[in-house]
Every structure is written in C-alpha cells, then in structure tokens.
C-alpha cells in the first residue's frame, strides 16, 4: 500500500497553471475600511443614493459585528485572524471611461482572458456562451449583449445595472441575502464593487449559457462581487461561473454574494467551476473563499439548481441554498468538492421548505487527498406550512491516502409530519485493489485515480452543461496530480 501511496503523492505535484500575474495599471483606493471608503467606492461608481445608503447600513452593521468579534467560527476550518484594515477594497484596471468596444480594452487584460480560454472576443460565437468577465473588482466586458437585448434579456455588469435598471436592482437587491445576513455577506454588501446582473423577462427561454469569469489579479485586494439573477414568470436561464487567481504567498479574501430569484414557473440553473489558487503544497497562500449563495423559489412551480465543482481555494466556506417558498417549487444541489494538500472546505447547502409539495435533492461528493480536510454541512428544514414536502440527500466521501479527512454534518429539522425525507451517506477510500485492477489493465496510477474519481463524481457532472463537464473533469485530474502516493 505504501508504494501505491507514493505514486499517488507523486501525481499531485503538478503546479497551478493559472497562477500568472497580469501587469496592468490599477486604480485602487487606500487599504482599510471605513465610511469614507464606502462613500468613495459608491461615488466612483456614480451610484444613486439608495445604493449608498444600503452600503452604509451594511457597513455600520458589519462594524458592530466586527467589534463584537462575531466573525463566524463554527465552520470546520482553521485559519489565522484576518486583518480587515489591511485589505484594499477597490482595485480596478485603469481604462478610458465608457468603453464602447473590445478594441478599447487594455490588451494586457484581453491576453489574460485569452490565457484563461475565455471567449471574450466573441470569436467563439458557436460556443454559445455569453461572458461577463470580472477582473479584480470591476466588470471588464460583457459579450453578446445586443443579441440578448433583442429578447429583452438583461445581462450586464452590476454597475451598469445600477445605472440602467435601478428599479430592478432596488426591488431585488438583498431580497434573498439581506445585508445583515452574515458577517461576510454584510461585508460584501458594504464594499462590493461589481458582479453580474441578469434579468430574464416573462416567458423567455435564454438561448445560450450566460457566463461570468472572475479573476483576482492585484495583490492585497479582496474580491467582493455580487451577482443578482432574476428569472421572471415562465422563463429559463442557465448561468455559469468560473474563477481563477494568480499565485501569491499571502492569502486573499474572496467574499461574494449571489442572489437568485425565480418567479412562477421560472427555472434557474447555476453552475460553478471554482478554481481559485489553492495555496502551495505546504499550504502557503491561496484564496479564502467565503461566499454566500442563495436562491429563492418565490413563485409556484419554480426551480433552482445549483451545481458546483470546487477544486480551488485554500479555504472554502459556502452553502448554496434554496428557499422553497412557492408551492411545488424544486431546489437542487449537486456538488463536488475536492481538497488536496492543505486545502480545507466546509461546504454544503440549505434547503428551506416553506411552500406545499416542495421538493429538494442534494447530491454532495467530497474528495479528500493529501492533508485536505473536507466537510459536508447541510441543512434540510421542513416548515410547518410545507405539507407534502420531500427531500432526498445523498452525501458521499472519497478518501485518497491516509492523511486527509472527511467530515459530515447533516442537520434535519422537520415540523410537518407529512414530510418525506431520505438521507444516504457513504465514505470510501480508493483502495490498493482498485488501483491495481486498473493498472493491470494498462492505466497509469494517475489515470486510474482520475478514472475512479470521475466515476465517483458522475452523478454531479451529469448536471453540468456539456462543455463545462469536460472542463470540470480535466480540472479534477489536474487538481489531483501528486495525490496518488
């Protein structure tokens, strides 16, 4: 077994290949956080008064939380204290105001996105993916905008939405994740600088995948983006999110908020492939990914699906959730979380059943390798009003090697006796016998691990859009290199 473990370890030593830094002129505010900074950020973005006031309320609330040392400590992760006054809360590539075409964009940024393989130049029309790219704090380009506009679909940066669709923003901002929701969401509400905004009008089926690509480039900055997606009655939208960051020794904070709202008969599919820099083999550096994602099935027969493949970040703390308010609404959560080397993840979901006959499905797959610690934390809550609610939860852990850990914390709260709940869980280890079997058939130890892991994740990959599923499989293999030991 030990020789096999060595092989596994050798495989995991490949380097993070998205770790390059782009040199662009940046415009930043001084580091630290106070009311003045909030006002500067809001002014830079030329925001209406309601936005400034919302941010200030959030800031004051956050300041009181920080004073009370209310930063959440319950997650099963360990990290040193974060000095919030050392973070730069706004960093933007300097650019001419009012870009009208991609030609005016800083070519260095364009090259970065090319390296990342994002179809920002619309050269990949056929790929059918519209992309909004967020570089550090601001949104740099949104492709396919006009084509979508013909259908009445709004897909733009959050900043632009604040300018052009203030009523929609005001109506829905904070309606799912209020500014006072939790420490990191509150911080985000105070300082968030950009993100994506989507509105799909009644009865429209969005004909292409909408996609945002997040990139942290500047040093010592936090990235605080906020995404708001509203699917009006009878509409459908599929949204993809990808993330990378350069290699840096220090930890960087990423505290994002995503809010989804599905009205009657609407459907939102939200897929994430998260590959923030995980830190090096010794656990130095990497992104702290402290994210609040929540969807509200407001209307009857509405549906929200979260699919996530989490391979990056030094620490992941996120629980994409569904509030199932509308009758017959459906919430789904499909997740693969991988921790290798010294990565830690505490992730899962919350399904809050309020409406009658609401249904939820949770399929969570955790993979731990190296010294990685992987925690599944999930809550299923059936309220008194949720007659006929159903939940199915499947939660599987896979261990590679003998120094990693898998932990599971399911919380189930049922207040209506008509509820039907199913919970299945398993923990397994990639065994020497499995590896030998595949190697005896000619596969290398690395390919063998990759195949076993991909098989383990199949149920989740099936939920991803085709081209994303392929990327996710490759990412998983790369992230596992050196984990065969």
């Amino acid at each position, binding site marked *: 077994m030990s*020789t096999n473990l060595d092989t596994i370890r050798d495989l995991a030593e490949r380097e993070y290949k998205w770790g390059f830094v782009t040199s662009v002129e940046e415009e930043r505010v001084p580091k630290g956080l106070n009311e003045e900074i909030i006002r500067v950020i809001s002014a830079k973005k030329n925001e209406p008064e309601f936005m400034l006031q919302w941010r200030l309320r959030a800031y004051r609330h956050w300041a009181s939380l920080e004073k009370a040392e209310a930063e959440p400590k319950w997650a099963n992760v360990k990290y040193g204290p974060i000095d919030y006054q050392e973070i730069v809360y706004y960093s933007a590539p300097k650019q001419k105001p009012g870009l009208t075409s991609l030609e005016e964009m800083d070519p260095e940024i364009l090259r970065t996105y090319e390296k990342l393989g994002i179809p920002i130049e619309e050269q990949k029309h056929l790929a059918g993916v519209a992309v909004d790219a967020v570089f550090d704090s601001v949104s740099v380009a949104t492709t396919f905008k006009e084509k979508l506009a013909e259908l009445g679909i709004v897909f733009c940066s959050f900043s632009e939405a604040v300018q052009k669709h203030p009523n929609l923003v005001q109506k829905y901002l904070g309606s799912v994740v209020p500014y006072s929701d939790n420490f990191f969401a509150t911080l985000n509400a105070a300082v968030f600088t950009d993100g994506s905004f989507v509105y799909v009008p009644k009865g429209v089926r969005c004909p292409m995948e909408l996609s945002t690509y997040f990139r942290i480039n500047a040093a010592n900055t936090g990235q605080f983006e906020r995404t708001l997606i509203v699917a009006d009655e009878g509409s459908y939208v599929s949204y993809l999110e990808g993330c990378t960051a350069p290699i840096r020794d220090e930890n960087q904070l990423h505290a994002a908020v995503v809010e989804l709202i599905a009205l009657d008969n609407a459907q939102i599919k939200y897929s994430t492939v998260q590959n923030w820099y995980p830190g090096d083999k010794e656990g130095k550096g990497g992104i702290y990914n402290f994210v609040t994602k929540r969807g509200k099935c407001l209307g009857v027969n509405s549906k929200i699906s979260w699919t996530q493949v989490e391979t990056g970040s030094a620490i992941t703390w996120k629980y994409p959730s569904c509030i199932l308010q509308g009758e017959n609404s459906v919430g789904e959560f499909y997740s693969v979380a991988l921790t290798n080397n010294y990565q830690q993840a505490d992730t899962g979901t919350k399904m809050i059943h309020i409406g009658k006959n609401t249904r939820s499905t949770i399929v969570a797959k955790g993979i731990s390798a190296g010294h990685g610690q992987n925690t599944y934390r999930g809550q299923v809550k059936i309220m008194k009003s949720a007659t006929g609610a159903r939940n199915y939860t499947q939660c599987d852990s896979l261990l590679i090697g003998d120094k990693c850990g898998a932990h599971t914390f399911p919380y189930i709260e049922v207040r209506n006796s008509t509820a039907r709940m199913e919970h299945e869980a398993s923990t397994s280890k990639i065994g020497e016998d499995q590896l030998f079997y595949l190697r005896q058939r000619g596969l290398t130890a690395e390919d063998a691990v990759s195949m076993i892991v991909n098989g383990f994740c199949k149920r989740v990959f099936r939920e991803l859009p085709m081209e994303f599923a392929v990327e996710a499989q490759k990412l998983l293999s790369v992230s596992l290199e050196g984990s065969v030991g």
Partner: protein
Amino acid sequence: MSLLEIKNLHVSVDKHEILKGINLRVNAGEVHSIMGPNGSGKSTLAQALARRETYTVTKGEVSYNGKDLLAMKPEEAACDGIFMAFQYPVEIPGISNAYFLRSALNSTRKHRGLDEIDAMDFLPMFREKLKLLDMDEKLMNRSVNEGFSGGEKKRNEILQMAVLEPKLAILDETDSGLDIDALRIVAQGVDAMRNPERAILVVTHYQRLLNYIVPDFVHVLVDGRIVRSGGPELALELEEKGYGAMEAEAGHANPA
C-alpha cells in the same frame, strides 16, 4: 527463447515468505496449469507476475519476452501484453464497462505506438466479443462490475481478455464461484483464444476447468514450491488422489 522464464522466485507478503523458489518456463502457444491446495501460493504467483506492489519479490529473476519483468510497473507489464483475470474483480462505480475497456485498450495501443480507437470503431468489435461470451449488450453501459453476479464478473474478465488480446494471460481461479453452465461458457471463451502466439497460465484448485481448457503442462504447487510437473494426466491423478498424497510425497505436508 521462452516467453516467460521464472528462476528461483521468492515472494513475500507482509514479510511472510509465500513463494520459496519457483522455476518455470512457458513458451508462446502453451497452456500451463498451476494447481495446488489452498495457501500453496498459486495466487501469489499470479499477482507477482502481474506486478502487484504488495507482493514483494525477495529473490530470483523473471524474464518476459526478453525483458526483466521484475523491473516493470503493473501498467507496463499490462501494456506489454500481460493480462490477469482476477479472482475477485473490483467494482468501479460510475465508469461504464465500454468506456473502461476502451481506455484500457487505448493505453496499451498507445504504448505500442498505435493510434487510439474511437468509440465508433470500438463498439462493433466490442459487440463481437460480447457474443463470444454470451453476454448481454446492456452490460456495456453498466458500471464496471457494479451489481454484477459472480458469474457475470468472471465473464467480464474474460471479455476484457478478449478485447485486450494479451501475449500472456494469467487466469487466477477463474472457475471459482461459477456454476456449471457459466464455467463452460467462460472456459470455452478462453479456449477459443488459444493461439501459437499466446501463452495461458491457468491457476486453479480443481480439475474441472481443465476439461474445457486442456493444458499442455500441469504443475503442482505445494508450500511455495513446484513439487511435480507433468502433462494433463497429472490433473486427473490429483483429482483422484487429492493433494494430500502429493504433499506427503514432497515432504511438505502441512502440520496443521
């Protein structure tokens, strides 16, 4: 030159010496049967030849096709044409039989400098082999060995052998757990794969498999050593007299 030449092979598992000096020559085109009582080291020999790393070679040499087999990793030996049919095939959830087998075939093809086979070319060939073993096509899309019956698992092993077309096939107690009908199908499948370029090593406890795959040579393994070698008649003699006589004869009777 023999395809396989084993000289004074000693193998330990968890520091227990199991094989205590095996000598064996196998030529291409020959079928050898390794027989012996439980615990005699039959499976250890099979696993060691397939290069399983938990089986430590402490002494001896093995040349395969003119190369030092003991320097090879399991996947290298596999790509060079060594195939082992497992006594206990493992399950790989979420990976379809067809995908797995095509990946394995392509690994070996790549090793030999051949182009990879795509799914379109692979399927007709795969279907052909399924028929040979009287297997249901539905098994193609099922996860590898998951939920297979004992017999289906063993048939699946031979199916893999048929697709991978090894130079040296090692069958590790392929007959165990098979009913009479399944035994016949599996054995006939193997027998159909006999050819002058291929050697087959049949590791078995019972003679019944050898009714279908008549070996050229039979070797009796007792306590980690080959105590007798002969033709197919030796298997019949064993069936009649049992291993006890031979153990006593070899002076290696198990005191227990």
